[in-house]
C-alpha cells in the first residue's frame, strides 16, 4: 500500500517533469526553425517593409511576385537543369557500381577482402580540399573544366559510404542464399541482379536519397570546376544571386531563390524522414 502511493507520487512528479521538458524542447525547436520561417516570410515582403528598420515577421502586404521573378531568371532554371544533369547519371551509374561492390565485399570470398575494404573506408576521411587542386589540374588537362563531367565521372565509380552501408545491410542476409544460388549454378552477376538487388531495395533507396541531397547541396566542387554561368549548378547560382542582389537590397528575391533551392531536399526529407534518420543514427552506433 505504502509502496503504491509512493509510486503514484513519483509518477505524478515525473509526468510534471515530462511536461516541462516538452515545453523546453518545443521552445528550442521553434528557435531552431525560426530562421527558416523568417526566410520564407522575408521572401513575401516588400522592400519597404524589409528596410523599415523595425521587427517585422508577418508580411504586410503579402507579395507573391518574387517567386515567379526568380523562376524567370534564366540562370536559375539552367541551374536546376544542370544539377539534375549531374544527379541522374551519378545516381544511376554510381548507385549500380556501389551496390555491386557492396555485394562483392559482403557475400563473395577473395583474398585481401577486408584490407581493401578498410582502405576504401579510410578514404572517407580524406578531405576534398586536399585533393581539389590536383583534381582541378587533372580535369583541366582532360579539358573537362567548365563542363559537368568533373562532377559526374568520379562519382560514377561509386560512393564509399554507400558501399559501407549496403555491406552492413547485406551481412544480415544469411549466406545460405548465396550457397543455394551457387548450387543451382546461378552466376554471380545473376545472383546479384535477381536475388540480392531486390533484397537491398530499401537500403539502396535510402542511400540514393541521401546521395541525391548531397549532390543537390554540393557547392565547393561546382564552384571550382564550373566557370561560365550557363554551366553553374543551382547552389552556385543562388550564391551569385546573394552577391548580386544584396547590393540592390533585394533580400526578398534572395530569400525566395534560397527557399526554392531548399525545397526539393526538404520535401524528400519529410517524405523519407524515418529511414533517413534511422540510417544516420546507425552510423553513430556502427
Amino acid at each position, binding site marked *: 500500500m505504502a509502496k503504491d502511493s509512493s509510486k503514484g507520487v513519483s509518477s505524478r512528479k515525473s509526468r510534471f517533469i*515530462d511536461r516541462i*521538458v516538452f515545453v523546453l*524542447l*518545443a521552445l*528550442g525547436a521553434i528557435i*531552431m*526553425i525560426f530562421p*527558416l520561417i*523568417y526566410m520564407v516570410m522575408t521572401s513575401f515582403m516588400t522592400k519597404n517593409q*524589409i*528596410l523599415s*528598420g*523595425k*521587427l517585422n515577421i508577418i508580411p504586410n502586404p503579402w507579395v507573391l511576385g518574387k517567386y515567379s521573378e526568380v523562376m524567370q531568371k534564366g540562370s536559375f532554371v539552367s541551374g536546376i537543369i544542370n544539377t539534375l544533369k549531374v544527379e541522374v547519371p551519378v545516381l544511376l551509374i554510381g548507385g549500380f557500381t*556501389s551496390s*555491386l*561492390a557492396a555485394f*562483392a*565485399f559482403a557475400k*563473395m*570470398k*577473395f583474398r585481401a577482402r577486408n584490407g*581493401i575494404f578498410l582502405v*576504401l573506408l579510410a578514404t572517407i*576521411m*580524406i*578531405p*576534398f*580540399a*586536399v*585533393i581539389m*587542386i*590536383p*583534381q*582541378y*589540374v587533372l580535369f583541366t588537362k582532360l579539358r573537362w573544366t567548365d563542363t559537368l563531367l568533373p562532377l559526374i565521372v568520379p562519382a*560514377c*565509380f*561509386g560512393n564509399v559510404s554507400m558501399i559501407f552501408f549496403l555491406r552492413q545491410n547485406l551481412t544480415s542476409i544469411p549466406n545460405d542464399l548465396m550457397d543455394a544460388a551457387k548450387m543451382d549454378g546461378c552466376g554471380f*552477376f545473376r545472383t546479384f541482379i535477381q536475388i540480392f538487388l531486390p533484397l537491398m531495395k530499401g537500403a539502396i533507396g535510402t542511400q540514393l536519397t541521401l546521395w541525391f541531397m548531397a549532390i543537390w*547541396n554540393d*557547392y*565547393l566542387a561546382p*564552384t*571550382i570546376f564550373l566557370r561560365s554561368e550557363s554551366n553553374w549548378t543551382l*547552389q552556385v547560382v*543562388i*550564391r551569385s544571386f546573394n552577391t548580386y542582389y544584396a547590393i540592390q537590397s533585394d533580400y526578398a528575391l534572395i*530569400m525566395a531563390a*534560397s527557399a526554392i*533551392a531548399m525545397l526539393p*531536399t*526538404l520535401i524528400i526529407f519529410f517524405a523519407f*524522414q524515418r529511414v533517413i*534518420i534511422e540510417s*544516420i543514427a*546507425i552510423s*553513430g*552506433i*556502427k
Partner: protein
Amino acid sequence: MNLNNKAKKTKYKMSPIAKKEERIAWLFIAAPIIGFLLFMAYPIVYAFIASLTKWTGTRSMLDTFCGFDNYVRLFSDAKFWKTLRTTTIYLIGIPIGMILGIVLAMGMNRKIPGVRVLRTMYYVPVISSLVAVSILWAWVYNYDYGLLNMIIKFLTGKHGPNWLGDETLIKVSMIIFMVWRGLGNSIILYLAGLQNIPRSYYEAALVDGANGWQKFRNITLPLLSPVTFYILITSLIGGFQVFVEVQVMTLNGGIGYSAATIVYYMYQKAFEGFQLGYASSIAVILAIIIFIITIVNFTFQDKWVKTMD
C-alpha cells in the same frame, strides 16, 4: 587456428571455383578501386609533388621545382597562421554542440508526445543546403535590417552590434551558426545511443541507490562514449574543412580576414591567385593535421570510449 589457416590456404590454391569467384569479385569491386586510384590516390601524390614547386599553371610544373621553399614561406606567413588559428577557434562549437545534443536527446528520450516531430524540427537545418542557410544567416546577422538586431532593438530599444563587422564578434557569429546547423545531427546520434542502453542498467543502479547525477555520470555518459567519439572525429575532420560559410557569409574572409579558414585561404591562393604550388603546400599541411588528429583520436580511444560489453 592453425588448421583454419591451412584450410583457407588450400582452399585458395586448390579450387578453381574459388579462383573464379575471386576473379569475378575483383571485377565487381573494380570501379571503386579505379575511382580511388584516379581521383584520390593520384591527386594526393600529385599534391605533394606540386607543393615542392612554384607552379602557377603556365609552365611545366617540374621546371619550377623549389624544394621545401613553400613550407618555409608558409611558416612565416602571417595569413596562414591567422587562418589556422581561426579554424581552431571555430572548433569551440564542437563541445557546445555535444553538450546541447546530449541534454536535448535526454529530454527526447523521455515519454513525451510528439518526439518525432520535435526531432525532425531540430534536424531540418542539417539537411538544408549549406549555401542557402549561410545566405539566410548573413541576412539574420545583417547590421541595419537583420532579424537578430531587429529583435534586440525591439526588446532593449538599442541597436544591436555589427555581428559580421567585428573581428571577434564575427567568429562568435560563425560558431553560433555552426552549432545551429549541426545540432540536429548530434541529437539524432545521441538519441539512438540512449535508446541502445538497456533499461536493466538503470534499474540495477536504482537498487544500488544511485541518484540522477550518478546515473548520468556512471551509466549514460560512459555508454554514450562511442557516439561521442564518432561525433568528435567527424566534427573535427569537418571542422578543418570549413569553407562555404566563410565564402557566402563574408566578403573576402571578413574584416581583417578575421573569419577566413585554412581551406578558404587555400582556395583563394589556388583559384584566385593561381599560386597552385603554394596552395598545394597548404593542402599537404591540412592533410597532415587531419591525419594526426585521426591517429591521436584512435590512439586515445580506449582510454575513454567504453563499449557495451
